[in-house]
């Protein structure tokens, strides 16, 4: 069981890297779905290992929210705004990869010294979870399309959930539900924003948001 968890963990990290280097919107959404499916699988394994009923609820939440609803919402937005074939250019892909790898090492450096009373592989997995979170953040910083930002944010959220799952066997139910609700609202707000941005700057390219600056016009 632990071996299986480790393998899936590695795959989740892989999806985080793919997301970072992906430049097609559809590819990103698909990779995100895969990441969420993997996360749901790990949660299921943990649920069996620890026999906690709350975790089965989490599995359900992930599937409904991140495998079905959010990708569906994004796809319909992409269709509605007609940006299916747009390609997001990534500047300096090589540097980005090096940076991403450095982030993973940094996470290991931080997490490995912690003594855990959990199981052997826990530290390893927490490090990866933290890396997934930070890679999501890197995605948010480097990609300039608003739609990549949703994926980046959701991927961050996946990393955080993953860390909580391994480190603490999931959070208390109230908190879990609260977070899921917040994520849902954030996703809807992203959708609202796309429409507003489209109407105001006629593009989803955040580089074109440059009206508010310090200097006198």
């Amino acid at each position, binding site marked *: 069981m632990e071996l299986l968890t480790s393998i899936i963990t590695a795959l989740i990290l892989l999806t985080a890297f793919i997301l970072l280097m992906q430049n097609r919107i559809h590819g990103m959404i698909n990779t995100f779905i895969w990441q969420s499916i993997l996360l749901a699988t790990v949660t299921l394994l943990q649920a069996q290992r620890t026999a906690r009923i709350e975790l089965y609820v989490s599995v359900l939440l992930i599937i409904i929210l991140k495998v079905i609803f959010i990708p569906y919402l994004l796809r319909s937005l992409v269709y509605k705004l007609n940006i299916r074939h747009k390609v997001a250019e990534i500047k300096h892909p090589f540097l980005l990869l090096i940076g991403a790898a450095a982030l993973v090492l940094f996470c290991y450096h931080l997490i490995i010294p912690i003594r855990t009373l959990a199981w052997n592989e826990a530290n390893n997995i927490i490090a990866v979870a933290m890396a997934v979170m930070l890679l999501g953040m890197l995605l948010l910083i480097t990609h300039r399309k608003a739609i990549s930002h949703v994926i980046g*944010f959701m991927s961050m959220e996946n990393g955080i959930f993953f860390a909580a799952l391994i480190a603490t066997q999931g959070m208390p139910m109230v908190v879990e539900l609260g977070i899921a609700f917040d994520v849902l609202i954030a996703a809807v707000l992203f959708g609202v924003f796309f429409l507003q941005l489209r109407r105001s700057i006629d593009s989803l390219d955040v580089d074109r948001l440059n009206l508010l600056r*310090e200097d006198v016009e």
Partner: protein
Amino acid sequence: MIAFYLTLFLPLAGTLLMLGIGNLRIAGLCNIIITTAGFIASLFMAHYFLQHGSFLAIEQQFYIDAFNLLIIVLTTFVVMTTAFFSNTFMWQSATTNRISNKHLRLYHVMYQLFALMMLVALAANNLGILWVAMEGATLATVLLVSLYRTKEAIEASWKYFILCIIGIALALFGTILVYFSAVQELTQTKTGMLWSVLAYQTNHFDPTVIKIAFVFLLVGYGTKIGLVPLHNWLPDAYSESPAPVSSLLSGLLSNVALYALIRFKILTDLALANHLADNLMMIFGLLSFVVAAILLQRQYNIKRLFSYSSIEHMGLITFTFGLGGPIATFVGLFYMLVHSLAKSAIFIIVGNVVQQAKTSLLEQIRGLIKNQPLLGWGLLAATLIISGIPPFGIFTSELIVFITCVKFLPLLAIILVAGFIMAFAGLLRNIQPVVYGEPTQTIKSKTCTWPAILHLSLVLVLGLYIPPVLQQLLQEAAGLITR
């Protein structure tokens, strides 16, 4: 006890009620009634607290002690006075067709929801719920910032949205790490996120984990406080949102974020028994204070000017809490109170000014005193108060911060003085031509400045005299923080 439930229930009921009210007049009135009732309920809660001491509620998920009680009462008070202002202000916006009826309904719903989320965050005992409510407050205000639907407003709210949700996601990670370090020792995972339990278990915490956690929490909640270098969203959001929203964001939301950070600082201090948290807060606080004082100089927009003043003051307050010790903490809390009152008053006045002048560019607003004496003098007084002239409360707090700083860290005191002078000069230099001089246009419409005047008078009173009840609460809260 019933007062506690009412304090939380009223804004919840208000949110649902506002969904159904389309008429602006009625909605504005209901807003006033509900928030006033909320303030009265919180006073009764304070009364209950003074008799019975700190208490837990709703299956230990909520907890009231002197620290959050103070901020809850402050929050309900400012939410109430701002509701009075918002009624007049929004009516004006609607009559000048700046805003549609549909958006006004959204505004009132979000106003109540925002108040609810702040109160839940403040009253939460469960650190997870604290986080959920903080995120909720952010999401509720995002649509308020973009209410006018101008290009600038949408840009500002997008920045606010994206930066704050990233920041706050990092804070969630920090919260999980704290839970992680606690849950290894506690057998009951259910109580592992409860502050009232954690505060007595800190000797079991893993120091490495707590260290990492605090850094994430500082970055996360620091983004919401507006600490440099995470402050980019703040001037945009404050300047583009409707005036009542700016007033609530600057006066209250940054306080709530600081409150959350201090809760974790208490845990970190107890677990590490060193000054890591203090030092980090001092560094980022002082950095924000200095950078904002410099950036104040080159502002061309009156709302942005005061946004930077917010960053400056929140930085100084963070610094004050970082100084540690009972006196500095006492002053920090007092400073939080007077800054909230003064800053929300300023945004109320500035909101009126901008609505009258139909522009927020400093160089286009002239001769306010001749045009609108009340607004002009109010703006001048508020500017002087926020830049710290005696005998107002801001002056008192800045003075004591300075004295404490001289005592412990004399070199930093020099930076403080330089910052005070720069901020004073920056504000006055920009505001002076706005209030004096010859008016360029003469437009008069209905304004609502009494909430601002009420706030400023309170700041004056607090600068001269602290009532015994308040002093007792402040001391008790400072005792909790420096335990």
